């Protein structure tokens, strides 16, 4: 069951990653090409998922939209992981006032629930892909920092760490040689679930009109564009939402599988 989850998850991610990488080769039409006469048309032989208000091919826009979702997901979570591990490493190994200060900053950032802080940052900076990544990184590092700090606190008293400390190992050596290799499993799991959360958050921001801007294809923005036409053209909303759900499902399944493989204590 565990491995099946992981395999299904990785297959779904692989499917969307291939679509994103090979978008120019597999997208049947130019995602920006408009044919106003055919606006909101349903599926036919050549346009399998139908067309949007401006007559653009929905399948092609979904294929190109996968690039946005995966690009934002990978970049944001990678940057967040690097920042979070560094900050958590500093907090955990320095202890004392440094640790206290970092934890208070984290408390303050955590006081803004979910994507509220990202929404506010986007309201200030204005929409756009780089601003989306910045806004999501602002809170994305917190999970990694807390995990790294927690792991360091629990590892600090282990004999091999005490021995390394006594033999004069530097803080950097302690972090990279001892703490990080022993914290890698929870960090990988956080990476997987964090990526799913980031992809949903990007789509949510674009849905609210605060993220990726038209005409660039993004699943969240496509859902928003389709909202006024729910009654007459539900395909505008159905397909981008289905793809988003499948990708998130795939990442969650892979994350579940990873957790089961890396953390045998987990009960399901």
């Amino acid at each position, binding site marked *: 069951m565990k491995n099946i989850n992981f395999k299904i998850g990785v297959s779904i991610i692989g499917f969307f990653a291939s679509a994103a990488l090979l978008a120019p080769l597999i997208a049947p039409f130019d995602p920006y090409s408009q044919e106003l006469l055919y606006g909101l048309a349903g599926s036919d032989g050549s346009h399998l998922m139908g067309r949007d208000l401006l007559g653009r091919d929905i399948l092609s826009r979904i294929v190109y939209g996968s690039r946005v979702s995966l690009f934002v997901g990978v970049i944001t979570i990678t940057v967040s992981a690097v920042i979070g591990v560094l900050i958590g490493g500093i907090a955990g190994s320095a202890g004392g006032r440094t640790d206290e200060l970092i934890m208070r900053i984290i408390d303050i950032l955590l006081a*803004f629930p979910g994507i509220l802080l990202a*929404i506010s940052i986007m309201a200030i900076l204005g929409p756009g892909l780089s601003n989306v990544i910045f806004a999501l990184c602002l809170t994305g590092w917190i999970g990694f920092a807390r995990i790294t700090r927690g792991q360091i606190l629990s590892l600090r008293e282990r004999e091999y760490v005490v021995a390394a400390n006594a033999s004069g190992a530097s803080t950097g050596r302690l972090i990279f040689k001892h703490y990080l290799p022993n914290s890698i499993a929870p960090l990988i799991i956080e990476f997987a679930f964090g990526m799913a959360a980031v992809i949903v958050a990007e789509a*949510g921001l674009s849905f609210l009109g605060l993220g990726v801007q038209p005409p660039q294809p993004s699943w969240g923005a496509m859902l928003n564009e389709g909202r006024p036409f729910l009654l007459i053209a539900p395909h505008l909303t159905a397909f981008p*939402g289905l793809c988003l759900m499948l990708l998130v499902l795939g990442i969650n399944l892979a994350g579940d599988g990873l957790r089961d493989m890396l953390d045998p204590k987990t*009960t399901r």
Partner: protein
Amino acid sequence: MRSWLIRRLFLLFPTLFGVITCVFLMIHLIPGDPVEIMLGETAVAADKELLRHQLGLDKPIATQYILYLGNLLKGDIGSSIHTQEPVFDEIISRWPATAELAVAALFFAILFSVPLGILSAAKKDSVVDRGSLFLSLFGIAMPNFWLGPLLIIVFSIWLGWFPVSGRGGFLSVILPAITLGTAMAAILLRLTRSSILEVADEDFIRAARARGQNEFLVYSKHALSNALLPVVTIVGLQLGALLSGAVITETIFSWPGIGRLMIESIEARDYPMVQGCMLSIATCYVVVNFLTDLLYASLDPRIRLNR
């Protein structure tokens, strides 16, 4: 318990103070001239100066901060730049709608997930168990900005059972509550199941069975009361997700709550209103988390003894 409470309260204030500072700084982080962004490039110079003065942006930043804190203590968080109405009054008028939606979503999530979680644990590895795990996987993966429109298509447009949008009466809250509560229900379902399974082999469960109690009573009374602690914690933590999810759900269903107000204010570049919304949502979240901690500590004495 009292010293634990004082310590916990002591940690609450720096967090709230940090939140207030972040919200204050928001308007100063706007690239360029915030007044020009709010009024537009074509606004006349006199209007810009008037607004700059109204917002206090013509004073040094330290003075602005002290004035902001002073006004906050008096319950004054500024006025809307469009309606000129006090932000506080507008926010207070919108909270009941958000609270109604959040409570309804919470109610839906608990009502759906806890019985199904118990059933799933009681019938482990059965069709019911696999079906409920499958449901929870989809519930977690399904973004509310897709679920909402789907529910509208099926239940409002095709079947005509519920209104498409707006707030008015019991029926109007059902679809928004399901939209907002589904992710939470999915998480609670998995958690209830695993918490029950963790205590299922404990002696007190076997003793209850040995006394001849029926399975329903064994699970609903003995197992559930001992598995409740993580469920309560997650309910508390998920209230934050409900508040941020409300921003999107209220937008989909034109629900006149604080989230909708925030998005409307962002669209209108009414920054004092956006600041007010952020401040009120974050404060509410911090206070709810504090209350969750209190409840958690009262349920499990080990927590307050360990800290």
